[in-house]
């Protein structure tokens, strides 16, 4: 690791100010950033730890909306969202391993937008709102491709608001070595319609499978997907799976999600 200082501000306001320094970077749970720093793939002058900011922590449920502070660890979401939004809690409880879940945060995951991360699919399928230190961003506008988001430099994800669907399911096909999603599908059924978001599969990062949504809005059963297929061209290919393999998995995992929702 290159050398840097670590700041520990106690409020969002102080953190935003600290991030104005050139080459400063936010530090959430460090579960992605610290391994990156070890490989010298980032060289911040200063890390601004968000862990001591009380206003960025916690889970609340009011009027069909679950709000999660941007600095809330996965383990807390798994525990505290279980009643209000079970599919989201189950997703959080299956990220990585227990020690990773005790440190890693939802804000860090959404800021990083790893193409194989779990939370982006939940945010997109739920039509969540990403609340930052300066504005509110609809999930449909927030995710802009692999490791790319609408966030500006120094902007902090302070909370995420999830409208709770009538029913939902996250189906993750795990890459067994990394435990990230080789393909993950989050399906959310609202009174206004079905939303299907896919992670792990595309070179453009998380995306909505709109053909499947249309078919399911006409008829909500696994057979409704018959004849629909994802084109393999833009799928990720690596040593864990070919483009065709991932495209196929998208259908399989979507059908599993439909059956789980019932």
């Amino acid at each position: 690791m290159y050398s840097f200082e670590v700041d520990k501000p106690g409020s969002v306001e102080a953190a935003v100010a600290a991030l104005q320094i050139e080459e400063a970077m936010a530090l959430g749970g460090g579960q992605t950033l610290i391994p990156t720093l070890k490989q010298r793939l980032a060289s911040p002058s200063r890390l601004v730890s968000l862990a001591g900011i009380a206003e960025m922590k916690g889970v609340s449920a009011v009027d069909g909306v679950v709000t999660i502070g941007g600095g809330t660890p996965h383990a807390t979401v798994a525990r505290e969202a279980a009643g209000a939004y079970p599919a989201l809690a189950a997703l959080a409880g299956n990220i990585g391993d227990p020690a990773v879940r005790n440190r890693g945060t939802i804000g860090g995951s959404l800021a990083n937008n790893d193409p194989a991360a779990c939370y982006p699919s939940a945010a997109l399928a739920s039509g969540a709102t990403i609340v930052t230190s300066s504005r509110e961003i609809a999930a449909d506008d927030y995710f802009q491709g692999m490791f790319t988001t609408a966030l500006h430099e120094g902007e902090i994800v302070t909370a995420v608001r999830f409208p709770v669907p009538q029913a939902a399911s996250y189906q993750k096909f795990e890459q067994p070595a990394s435990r990230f999603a080789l393909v993950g599908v989050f399906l959310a059924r609202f009174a206004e319609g079905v939303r299907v978001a896919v992670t792990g599969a595309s070179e453009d990062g998380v995306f909505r499978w709109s053909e499947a949504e249309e078919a399911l809005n006409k008829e909500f059963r696994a057979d409704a997907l018959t004849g629909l297929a994802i084109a393999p061209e833009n799928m990720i290919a690596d040593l864990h799976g070919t483009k065709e393999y991932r495209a196929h998995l998208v259908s399989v995992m979507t059908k599993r999600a439909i059956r789980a929702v019932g």
Partner: protein
Amino acid sequence: MSEVRIVVNGVERFGVVEGRTLLSGFLRDGLGLTGTHVGCDTSQCGACVVHVDGQAVKSCTMFAVEADGRSVDTIEGQAAPDGTLNAIQQAFQDHHGLQCGFCTPGMVMSAAALLKENPTPGEAEIREYLEGNLCRCTGYHNIVKAILAASGQDVAAIAAE
């Protein structure tokens, strides 16, 4: 450089660390507590698991300054002062839950965290909880047995594979 005060295994310890000093580095190089092992660079192996304020964390993936003012428990604090092993450590010995021993400190600390959350976990729950702890020697079977035994459960039920 900043000063840190961390209660390690119940004893208040002080140190002066760089921003980039990892908690694992502070424990090993700063305090000479080399029981916490470092087996990877990618936060995947779990050999470095310790408890911070009672929660299992990978000490290689947290900075020492982040532990300032908190309490950290390591493998060195698990046995009694006279060297008597705790129930988990004794069960690892009795059930041959280690071979080279490299992963063992992390395994024991993860097992301790699990048993605090869930005093009588089933075999599947144990395997799931240990997802972030890699062992290159044992094939995990005897580790699972040891944890079942440490929680007072019957180990005869899980067949040798």
